[in-house]
């Protein structure tokens, strides 16, 4: 029986070194995604995608006007390493028509590259904008939760390379306790704006990648109410049945009417 595992990414410990990005790319053999200046602080990676499975966000605030100009102490600059959330109810997994996307024995969501046919339906099913089709290759890619490494008892490459243990990895129950303890510790130190991001109260039903961030999670591009699109299917098929009924009975009556003439 394998253990269900999780990441716990503690942004208060992140130093923005991007070791996780490099380690992930090297271990998984993911191609480079260009050297582009975004102008968004030191984040020149952009976002997670088919060739970026770890992405360090640089959340930078301007100093408040009139409160000391560019005084460095008043500006805030925090970093947070983003990754596939490995949702409990994963939109991509539910949407995949080929069964290429599966749940692993570790609780992660894994795209089997030998089955994916590149329909790209998972891309519009992910509430976190993680999975993406590689246009050159044709298939969809995302973080594998280092399934290969976990299989042989190793920690994912990003967690192993992280020099400050900002990225923690372990059994999910343990990670939840570690996260809670860390939050309490930070709160006790007066860091009132710290919070845990783990959307358990939405249709996503929680994740296998918890985050501890300071301030509003939205400034880290973490959505307040991510929804697995399976919540819409019932209403959709009901409407489809209505449309089918309109077509069936509409044409029945229309041809009944025309036959009489």
């Amino acid at each position: 029986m394998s253990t269900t595992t999780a990441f716990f990414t503690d942004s208060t410990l992140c130093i923005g070194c991007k070791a996780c990005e490099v380690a992930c790319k090297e271990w998984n053999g993911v191609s480079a995604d260009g050297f582009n200046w975004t102008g968004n602080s030191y984040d020149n990676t952009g976002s997670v995608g088919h060739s970026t499975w770890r992405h360090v966000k640089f959340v930078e605030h301007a100093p408040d006007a009139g409160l000391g100009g560019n005084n460095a102490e008043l500006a805030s600059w925090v970093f947070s390493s983003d990754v596939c959330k490995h949702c409990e109810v994963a939109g991509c997994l539910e949407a995949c028509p080929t069964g290429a996307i599966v749940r692993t024995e570790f609780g992660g969501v894994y795209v089997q590259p030998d089955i994916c046919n590149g329909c790209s339906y998972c891309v519009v099913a992910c509430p976190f904008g993680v999975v993406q089709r590689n246009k050159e290759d044709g298939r969809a890619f995302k973080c594998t939760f280092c399934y290969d490494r976990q299989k042989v008892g190793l920690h994912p490459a990003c967690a192993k390379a992280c020099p400050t243990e900002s990225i923690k990895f372990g059994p999910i129950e343990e990670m939840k306790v570690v996260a809670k303890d860390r939050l309490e510790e930070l709160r006790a130190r007066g860091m009132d704006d710290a919070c845990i991001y783990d959307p358990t109260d939405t249709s996503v039903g929680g994740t296998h990648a918890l985050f501890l961030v300071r301030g509003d999670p939205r400034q880290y591009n973490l959505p307040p109410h991510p929804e697995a699109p399976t919540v819409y299917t019932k209403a959709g098929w009901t409407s489809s049945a209505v449309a089918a009924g309109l077509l069936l009975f509409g044409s029945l009556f229309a041809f009944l009417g025309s036959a009489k003439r």
Partner: protein
Amino acid sequence: MSGHPQDRPTPEHADWARENRLFEIRREAERKGYVDADTLRVAGAPFPKASPATGYYGVPLLKEPQWSWEIPPYFFVGGAAGSAAVLGLMANWVGGDQELARDCRLLAAGGAILSSALLISDLGRPERFLAMLRVFKPQSPMSVGAWTLAAFGSFSGAAAFAQIAADRYGLPVRLLGNIAEAFSAAAGLPFSNYTGVLIGATVVPVWNEHIRSLPIHFGMSGLSSAVGILELMGHENTALNTLGLGAAAIETLEGVNIEASRKPAVEPLKQGTSGFITRLGGVLSGPVPVALRLAAAFAGRRRSMKLRKAAAACSIAGSVLTRFAWVHAGHVSARDWRLPLEIALRKKGLP
């Protein structure tokens, strides 16, 4: 920093009006985080600033749909073919119009072949199309759709094949053709509108906002285009006009519905290029054919057919535009970083 002497005015020859303007600009930048100027549109702010008001620098959270150009035509062809199969069944058994039933079978089968080709060529790995039939996942509209297409293609193909075999070569396959036709119509019912569920059950805000109306909208759009194609082929059965009128009336309601909505997620259907295509498609598939078909219902036979053909052409064009409009709107919607982050504010000048 040496530069031209005029760069560093000394108080005695300083132009204070211009100096004050510089101060004003600075104040504006400090206050708003950006400066309004005709030639300048700053994305976000001059100083990169993540905040609950701008999200993560306004970087979109969601990924844009990655379907290629084949998908809107696929939606159109599938809608018309699925509806044609149902029309064929009714024309055959209820309307007693064998000519129409035959053309419906051919239209359904032709559409099924074209649909499959479009769908397969859109795949990132077209040679792996059959992976779609590895599993059946009722929770995935794409899986349900792939199986529906497979069933629809098989049965409509068989019905058309039997039709040709019986008509041309006198083979005794009428019964087989009729059975295939019934199954083809059964598969055509969901096939004509499932694409509404397909795009509605996604994270793209403008799509999932309309999950309740999209299948009906796409279904009626498909019916209009099937009716239109058959009329342009020369069929004069009045049932077609009645159906075209009904479908166009429902399309008009859908247009009113979209225009009346004030939700931020609906913006791409009203603004910009996607808004323009939506409105153009909406007018062509709603009010215009309604008016033409109503006039046709009361006109003499010759004039009536002219009006119906005009309505048919409008409906077909409207139906094609509608599918492109919705896909385009989906792209715009996915790029809108405010929606998934639930940020209501839209400041002028911000992306």
